Structures are given as C-alpha cells and as structure tokens.
C-alpha cells in the first residue's frame, strides 16, 4: 500500500487540480488566438505567429531614416539568431492601415523605433524602446508560466501562482485555498491562477525570479500584483482567508513591503501600526 502512495498522490493531485481550477492555466496549453485577423497587416501577422505557437518580435517605426534603418538591420540580424522560435514583424505607426495594431498596444506616442517581444498568448514579454540590441534579443522569450502570468498582469489582474507537484506537501490545501480565492466574487474578475511544477526545468528561471526553489518539498503559493510585484509568498498550507486578508491588506495598506512611501501612504515616513501588514501566516 505504501509503495502505491506516490502514484495515488499524483492521481489525487491531478483530480484536485482539475476540480479546484475550473480552467487551470497550464504551460503550453491550447489557447484561443489573442489577435484578430484581417483588421491590419500587423495584427494578422501576430495572429499567424500565435497560431503557430511562435513568438512575434514587432519592430515599430515612425519615419524611415538612418537611425531606423540601422536599428532594423540589428533587428533582422537578431531575429535570424532566434530561428523559428520567433517571427519578425515590421509596423509603421504612421501607416493608416496599421492603426488597429498601434491602438492595440497604445504605442502611438512611444519612442521609436520600438521593438516588442510578444508571446503566443499575447503577453508583451519585453520592450526595447530606442536601443534594441542583438545580445538581449533572447530575453524576450520566456517560459510558458512567465508568459501566462505576464498576460494576466498586463490585463491588470492579480495572479496566484501555485508551485507544486506530487512531491510537495500541502499541495491540496494550497490548491483549495487558491481555488477558493479565485471563486470569491470580489476577486473572480480580477484574478487568475497559474499552476507550475517546481521540477520543470523550463520554469527554472521564472521560479528563481520568484525566489522559489525547484527542490521545494512544500507547495508554494505566490501572489503577484500588477505590474509584476510578488506581494506575498505562502509556504505550505494556506487558507483562502489568509490570501484574501493579504490582498485586502495590500490594497488598503500603505506599506506593503514594510517600507514607508511618499504622499498618500505614510507622510513623514512613519507607518502607523494598523497600516502595516496584518495578514497572518504570511512569509515574505
């Protein structure tokens, strides 16, 4: 019986995951194309790249000058090094037919030339205003987990990242808490859940940026707020009430990280005791 325990845990974990997250966001999962086709050449090219699960690197430019030409050469050379992982798209922001593309990203007033790396799910994974360099081109390609989080964050949503697998303890409680939070009517429209396997090598860099060890033996839940702030990290068991308390605290509190801020928060640099984090069971 004991020998079957790991296999049983995997089955239970999978069932629990499926039940808890109505539509679990998983890496490399089939997703609807984020871009409409036919409205503009740029968006059509983006839709094509997304359909083929490839990244799109969009080169936005305004006027054809020497600087633009030089940057375009760098861009073309850099994209060549990325091979079939990314498509190169060129968009002139002054062209009337590209207005839908420009409006989609609100880049009409951006410094030009501007290069955006866009994941297949539609998330902008990196922007290079003015100074696109071939050496940093690869930074635009991120893991599926990071892209999922970025997509939600860019939609001004908070993200609950559940890092767990069959080997982590308290996985069920953590998932249940996350599901409870995501089902809460106060947060349902403004929050998304992402599940990551700590042992997935593709997510190692992303997990490292979240300060989560790939060898963790406890389930970890990370709460991210726009634009990408890790607001809280819950190690092991956590309850929906604790997550809600942390979110409420961060929304209303002035010193989310225990630091005093300017203006509306803590004038004079002194935080009142009631303004500091009141969420219990939070390790940060």
């Amino acid at each position, binding site marked *: 019986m004991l020998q079957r325990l790991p296999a049983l845990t995997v089955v239970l974990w999978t069932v629990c995951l499926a039940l808890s997250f109505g539509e679990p966001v998983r890496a490399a999962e089939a997703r609807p194309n984020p871009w409409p086709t036919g409205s503009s050449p740029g968006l059509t090219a983006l839709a094509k790249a997304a359909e083929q699960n490839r990244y799109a690197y969009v080169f936005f430019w305004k006027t054809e000058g020497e600087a633009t030409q030089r940057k375009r050469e760098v861009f073309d050379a850099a994209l060549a090094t990325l091979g079939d992982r990314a498509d190169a798209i060129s968009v002139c922001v002054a062209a009337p037919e590209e207005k839908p593309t420009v409006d989609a990203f609100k880049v009409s007033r951006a410094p030009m030339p501007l290069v955006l790396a866009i994941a297949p799910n539609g998330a902008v994974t990196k922007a290079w205003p003015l100074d696109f360099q071939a050496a940093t081109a690869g930074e635009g390609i*991120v893991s599926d987990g990071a892209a999922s989080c970025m997509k939600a964050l860019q939609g001004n949503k908070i993200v609950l990242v559940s890092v767990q697998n069959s080997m982590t303890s308290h996985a069920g409680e953590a998932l249940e808490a996350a599901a409870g939070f995501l089902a809460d009517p106060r947060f349902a429209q403004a929050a998304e859940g992402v599940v990551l396997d700590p042992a997935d090598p593709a997510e190692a860099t992303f997990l490292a940026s979240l300060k989560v060890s790939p060898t963790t033996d406890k389930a970890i839940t990370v709460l991210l707020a726009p634009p990408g702030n890790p607001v809280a990290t819950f190690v092991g068991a956590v309850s929906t009430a604790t997550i809600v308390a942390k979110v409420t605290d961060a929304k209303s509190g002035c010193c989310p990280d225990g630091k005093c801020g300017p203006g509306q928060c803590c004038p004079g640099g002194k935080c009142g005791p009631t303004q500091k984090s009141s969420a219990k069971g939070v390790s940060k």
Partner: protein
Amino acid sequence: MNLGSLVWRELLERKAQMLTVAFGIILGITTLIAIRTISFYSEKAVARELDSLGANVLVLPKSVSLQDYYAADMHDEVIPEEYVMRLTMSDLQGVDNLSPKLCVPVTIADRKYSLTGILPKSEFQAKAAWAGAGIFSRPIGCGAIDMGDAPPEEDKKTLARKRVIKDLAADEILIGADVAARQKISEGDSLTLLGQVFTVVAVLPETGTVDDSRIFAHLHTVQDLSKSGEVVNCIEIVGCCKEIAAGLVEGVNTLLPDAKVVTVKQVVDTQITLNRMMERLSQIFLAIIVLVGGAGIANAISANVSERRREIGTLMALGAESWLIQRIFLSKALLLGLIGGGGGYVIGTILAVTLGPRLAGVPVMPMPGLALWALVISVGVALAASFIPAWRASQLDPVATFRET
C-alpha cells in the same frame, strides 16, 4: 487745553513735515508687512505640498529655470511625450507614479486660466509590465499596490492629492476650486474650451496652490486642441524616498539626458533660499526703518523742540513739570508711530493679498498677528528716536529761553 489737544495741535502745526515723517514710517512698515506676509504663505504652501506629496521628482526641459515648483509646468518650453514611455518601460526602481502635464492658456468670461493636459494612468499602466521577466525580481514599490480590481467609480477628486488619475475621457475635465467658485461651475456642467465642449466630471477640493486655478483635461485632447504636438511641459514623478536616495534621479538623468531632472527637495531648497532672501530683505528694511525713520523722527522732534523753546519755557514758567514736556513730545512720536504702523500694516496687507498670488503663485490672506508686530516696531522706533529730543526739551531752563529772544 489738555495734553491730547496740545499734541494734536502741535502735529497739525507742521503738516508737511509730519506727513513726510509718517510717510517714511508707513513705507517701511508696508514693505516689511508685504514681504513677511508673502513669505509666510509661500513657506506654508511649500510645507503643505511637501507633506502631501512626499519625495518627488520633476522632469523639465533643460532651459527651464526652476523658480517656483507650483508653476514648474507653466512655461513655453517642452519635452517629448515619449519620455513618459521611456520612463514607464525602463527598469528604473522607485518610480511609483508618473504625471506628465501640458499647460495652455484659456479664457473663460474674460479671465485667464491654465488648461492643463494630464495623462491618465490607464494610458501607460500596462507598459510597466513590459520590462521583461526581470520585473518579478523587483522589490515592491513604496506606494499602495494596485491589486487590479480598482473600485468601479474612481473618485476623480483624488487628483488634487495623488497627482495621478486612473481614467479620463477625451471630453471630460476636472475644475480647480478657484475656477469653479469664480465661474460658478459645478459637476455635470458643460464648458466650451478651445472650441470643444467638455463635461465637468469633478470640482477639485481647494489645495491652496496654483492647481486651484487650473482646468485639467486629457493630455492628448489638449495637445490636439492647442496644436502643440506630442509634447509636454513637465513630467512629475512620484518616486519612492528610499530609491531617490539610492540614485533614482541619476537613473532618470541617464535615461533622459536632454531633460532637466530635479527633486522636490531641490525645489524646496530653492524656495527656502528664496524665503531666506526675503527674510534678509525684510531685516534690511527693518534696519532702514530704524535708521531712516528713527533719524527722521529724531530730526523732526529736535527741530520741533528748537522751534518751540520759548513756548516750552513759557509752559515751564507757568508750572509745567519736566515730565509733562517730555510727554508732549513722546505722545507726538507715539501718534506718528501708531499712524505709521497701522497705515503700513493695512497697505502692506493689501499689497501682499493682491500681488502675492502673482509674485509667489500662492494665495495670500491677511495676517492680523502682524498688526501688533507692525505697531510695536513703528511705535518703538518713534519713541526711541524722540526720547533724547524730548528729554532735552524737558531740561530747558525757562529763564534762558526768554533771554534768547
């Protein structure tokens, strides 16, 4: 004839001389009161602004000289609006919020106001998440965290306090308290500015700053209506104190080498320097009052004593005591001091209230406490300056004064 009528008749006897002396005192006290009143409200406004904003950074055109923080965006020089995007998409830490502004003059019922274009946060907020995967490693900023689910109806009046607004439609405006009061505009009213009809979505609470005389609209609308192009006069950055100390300003300088980057601390230092200069100036005027006013009074009373030697002698021969003679001249000086102090306070206050908002860009109110101060100074100077001539008069020998004729 009592002492009062004696003094009054003595004053009216040489009207031109007394008017000149009184005018000297009034002039000095007027200047002193005006400077002190304007300085007081200027310092108060800076302190209030600093308290409400905390640490802040201003990005301005290089050629703009920073004289006054409140009017920092009221100039003809511009910087490209794209600087906002550069800041938003940069990996600079400690930028909590951004507020670009473009000011153009507008006229409502023959009064000039500043139509200030502001960029709502929704225009650039998402771009903060374009900085790549490294964004997850950044420390949490210093302000309240945006947890996505903002209240459905944002209180736009918070612009006055937070400097940043979340959403603002192209045909919406926010009105400063002073504009609303003078033009009798309230929320929901329509207002035509530069040929476009706007809806007033909020009347901002009074701040005591130049913002009370502003009308806020969407930056892109103001740019289009004024045909200014994609430019702004200034970008206000709400920065975190810690990061400002750790080099945020240097980071912004590196990112925007063609702009001038100043912190509010620098602005406040400039203002404090200006206030200190005003303070020194008022001290100089005080010295001038003491020297010139005092000398004038002393001279007038001395001349008066010389001219009235015979009358003084007659009074003393009739039994007047030295103290009475002294009181006559000291009372005359006291009256001059009271007229000078009172008149100086009234005129100085009127000047400060009318000229203060133009000179310092802050509303100025009368300071009744300064009235006592003005009276004490002018009366003190007048009494001190006339003490010796009055004492000399009281020491005159009546017999000697009769022999002189």
